[in-house]
């Protein structure tokens, strides 16, 4: 039995031309658009146990999304190891598709499959990845939609849903196959302010049920209530880690202090 559901050891990811090497994305696409080198992830290590809820926050462009994509091997790290349970995903020859089936991923911009209804979106992995029979897949998909309270959207296409409904379907899509962990990349930041509440409520429900989650978010009241650990991330590194009380009372580092002040002022002004 592995101690951790997921673990990152000294992960690095650089975009741009470093040693004239092109960066490789999971789909085989190579990107060399950036002329300058961006070190989005520099020596980041992290451990997540079953039932953990950890929250990553930090300035825009600091590499949080990149790190999350590396964890799911949707971006291939340049260096370092990613473990899912006992399995090292960064070793050559690993069946990454199988691994990704055990990792739920929720995107900032949702990325529902546009040509499928909410039900179709959730069912796809159950049918095509888990290979469940039709009836069972449907039952589980409907249960997942019910869990995030979007049963009424089951037969709607993404274009016909509100942002909050779409993102809850996105969560159901990640949830339905009972992944070992769910990674959520700013699940509310693309939504209108009045719609973030419903998604945050969904996440609170999941937290109550003991779902293992790593969430990138700047929703501070939510962070304080549900996170066991907050991780302040800046310039490709983890700068400070600690319980919410540490960040809300007295962060150890100046950078975290400044960032917290800025974010809390912004929230109270709104």
């Amino acid at each position: 039995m592995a101690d951790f559901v997921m673990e990152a050891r000294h992960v690095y990811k650089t975009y741009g031309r470093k040693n004239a090497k092109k960066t490789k994305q999971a789909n085989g696409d190579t990107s060399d658009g950036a002329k300058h080198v961006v070190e989005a992830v520099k020596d980041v290590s992290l451990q997540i146990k079953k039932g953990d809820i950890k929250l990553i926050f930090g300035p825009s462009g600091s590499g949080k999304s990149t790190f999350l994509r590396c964890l799911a091997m949707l971006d291939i790290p340049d260096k370092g190891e990613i473990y899912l349970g006992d399995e090292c995903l960064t070793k050559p020859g690993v069946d990454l598709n199988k691994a990704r089936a055990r990792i739920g991923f929720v995107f900032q911009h949702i990325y529902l499959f546009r040509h499928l209804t909410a039900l179709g979106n959730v069912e796809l992995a159950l049918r095509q990845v888990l290979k469940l029979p039709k009836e069972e897949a449907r039952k589980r998909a409907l249960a997942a939609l019910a869990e995030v309270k979007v049963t009424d959207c089951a037969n709607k296409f993404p274009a016909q849903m509100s942002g909050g409904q779409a993102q809850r379907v996105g969560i159901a899509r990640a949830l339905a196959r009972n992944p070992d962990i769910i990674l959520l990349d700013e699940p509310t930041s693309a939504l209108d302010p009045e719609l973030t509440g419903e998604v945050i409520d969904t996440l609170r429900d999941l937290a109550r049920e003991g779902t293992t989650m790593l969430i990138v978010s700047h929703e501070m009241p939510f962070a304080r209530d549900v996170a066991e650990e907050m991780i302040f991330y800046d310039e490709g590194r983890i700068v400070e880690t600690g319980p919410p009380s540490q960040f809300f009372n007295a962060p150890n580092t100046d950078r975290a202090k400044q960032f917290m002040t800025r974010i809390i002022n912004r929230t109270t002004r709104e």
Partner: protein
Amino acid sequence: MDVWQELIILLEGVPLTLSISIVSFLIGIVVGLPFAFIRVYEKEIGFVVDAYEKIFRGIPEIVLLLLFYFGLGPYFPSTFGNAFFTAAFVLGLRSGANQSQIYRGAIRGVGDEQMIAGMSIGLSKWRAIWHIMIPQVFTFSTSGLGSEYALLIKDSAYVYVIGGLAELMKRAIELKYSAADVVTPFVISALLYILLTFPIAFWLDRWGNRRKKKIGL
């Protein structure tokens, strides 16, 4: 010979014109779709697709038809010796080159995020392409595919150069001699070509736009 007799003779060529065009169109899908994805997602071997596109888009189909039918036909009687096979082969591969470009644009339009989302649920790259990209790529391509279909109907007329296939154009040219009438056969066939192309291209475009709206593409 009166106009009605001419019309009937020409109408009898329509099924062949249609089948040459439709078979070519289907060959174009089968070739163009995988090539488009190879070009986008397997950059290492993308040059093969580029070379293919250049050849089939760069050489006039009359030249290709004559080359394959009279050049290779004698050596491969059961394939290139067959007029229908050669016609479908040349027009199909030419259409594949066009369709590959149409789909490539559509793949970019659908967006890489859809691919990433597909892989995030555990689908392999090629299964994500099948279940997520291809349905959207077709929706995105409908107006391009409508024009491509119309182009094939029109270009099927070139097939008269290799003889052997009594499609619309060949019948029109023969009528010119047998009926000693240079105008009527061509006027009738011009109208028939329009009837074969316009409604389907129009319908495809409209259906595509409706569907695009529905799924927010």
